[in-house]
């Protein structure tokens, strides 16, 4: 399989993730978009690892790292979302503007 196919899929996934981060109002969906972007990167890592026939498989090792860190990150992110929801009864991103210039 030529490396272009996974690369294009990864680029599409990444673009969907960027769109979600920039345009979605729901914080949980934004977090999911971030996961999409991370997984697009993972796909790239695997594809290029195979295509370059890396003896040490460093691409795959790095992917495992990213998965672990992404899991931790989602855990913290969801905890923050919960805390925000408890205090403000809202998780819409465009309503959380306390740091804005009055």
């Amino acid at each position: 399989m030529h490396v272009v196919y996974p690369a294009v899929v990864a680029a599409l996934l990444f673009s969907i993730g960027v769109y979600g981060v920039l345009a979605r109002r729901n914080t949980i969906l934004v977090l999911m978009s971030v996961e999409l972007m991370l997984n697009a990167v993972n796909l790239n890592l695997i594809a290029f690892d195979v295509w370059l026939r890396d003896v040490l498989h460093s691409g795959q090792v790095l992917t495992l790292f990213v998965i672990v860190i992404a899991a931790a990150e989602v855990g913290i992110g969801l905890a923050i979302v919960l805390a925000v929801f408890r205090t403000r009864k809202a998780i819409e991103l465009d309503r959380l503007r306390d740091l804005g210039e009055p």
Partner: protein
Amino acid sequence: MIAALIVVLPFAGALLGLLLSRYPHGRSPAENLAANKRAAWFGVVPTALSAALIGWLAWENTPSTNVLTVIDTGGISITVGLEVTELSVLTAMLVGVVALAVQVYSVGYMRGESRYPSFSAFISLFTSAMLLVVFAADLMVLYVGWEIMGLCSYLLVGHWWEERANSRAAIKAFLVTRLGDVGFLFGIFVLGFAADSFRISDILAADIPQSTLVLATLLLLAGVAGKSAQVPLHTWLPDAMAGPTPISALIHAATMVAAGIFVVARLYVLFPQPTLDVLGVAAAIGMLGAALAAFAQNDLKRVLAYSTISQLAYMAAALAGGARDAAVFHLVTHGAFKALLFLCAGAVIHHVGSNLLHHMGGLRRSMPVTFWTMTIGYAALIGLPPASGFFSKDAILYGLERSTSPIQLLLYGSALLTVGVTGAYATRAWLMTFFGTGKIQALPEPAPGTAHIFDGREAPPSMLWPLGVLAVPALLLGFTDVGEFHLAPAVTALVVALLGAAFVYVVWRGSPERDPARLLGAFRDPCEQAFYVDRLYAALFVRPVLALARGVVRTDDGVVDGAVRGSGRATVGLSGLLRHLQNGNAQLYVTGVLAGVLLIAVGAVMLG
């Protein structure tokens, strides 16, 4: 050495008076009284010591020079030193005696005044500065004393600064004399550079070209006209009468205003004929104009002020006519009798509680001592024998008669006319003060700026003693120079003066209630306004300068401050635009970051 002590003693008195009078500090009435008492000692004792030392110096009568140090300026060095000459000892004698009399007098005059300590300290400082001028061996040292005198004059004229008119008068006196002092300083520079030394003895001996001398002396003359209240810078002196009367006696009659005449006499050999002619014309105009103005004034102190201008112009005329010794002689006698007249006027004003002649009258009985001493003063002013003024005026008239000056006729005619007018105004003031009927019933409580009213009939002893002491030289000083007496001019002057006096007496006799100044008729108003010189100056100089100052203020407000404020406002406005981006929406920020990354990436690709 003695000269240095003479100068330093009053200065030390001034320092002590300023620093220690109010120690320990307190403002209660009792403490004020104690402070005034201490200040009186600090004022009187050093001045008395200084006067005694001057007497010793006069008795020794040996010219000497003492140099403390030479200040190396890189250019022409300045010699800090004192020089004792015959002229300086004579003038210092006058300064010492008058200053002592005034110090003693003001103890009584300023009784209970809360600012008396600074007042007496400034008198001491002034005395020291005047003595420095008199004894200075170097023109720069002389100039230092000259400026300190001007400062003291300002401080003392404005002593009762609560009244706005008084502080205005002080500022006017300061500014007008400063105007002349600028010329004076530049005159010193020209002389110093021409002679390559600021030492007076070097300058007098130097061979300076005529044109340089004319320039330098004309510049000096500006300072002389400012300090000695000569036309055209005379306008400050009548207004300076806003100060306490002892100050008028000391500074504005006897000493500071005589400093200008003194300087001309000190540097007399330097003055070439053209400068003397300028001085003579100013003096001829000044003496007659001021005498006429004195005749129409209603304020006793202003009468004496214009009289001072007129008498100083006499001395200037004598200098212009070549009669230097007569000018110095008149300087000394005038200092004595004019100080006496002012101190008497102070006693009268104290008694009546008003400066105005038409509030006075019939004081002959209630104030016998003041009456007799003031009569002596007026006799000297008119030039009646045997008072001192008779001899000094005779010397001046004799000198002017013999003068070889090209304007001799103008000087002599003006002087003779002024003798007549002097007789008239002195008689008018004398009659209106001491004769007729008393006119005061009850004056309102005087505002600060006027003298206090005493309950007693005559002034306190501390005020009467100086009158008696000054009356002696005013009466007898003329006999010290009696060898120079000339009968013909004396008789002429006496006849003219008596004519003026008799004329006024006859008019006054007709109706004692009315002011003899009505003699002047339609001419009275111009005389009372001193020929509108003040108004002319206001229109020519004061108002344009004020308009210019307002323009500067407006420019400062509009342009300079506007630029500063405008740049601030522009920054705030611009940052207001950027503020709209900081709306708190994190997604917007991320969009911005992404856009930036894209731009950089595209840029890197395009350019790389």
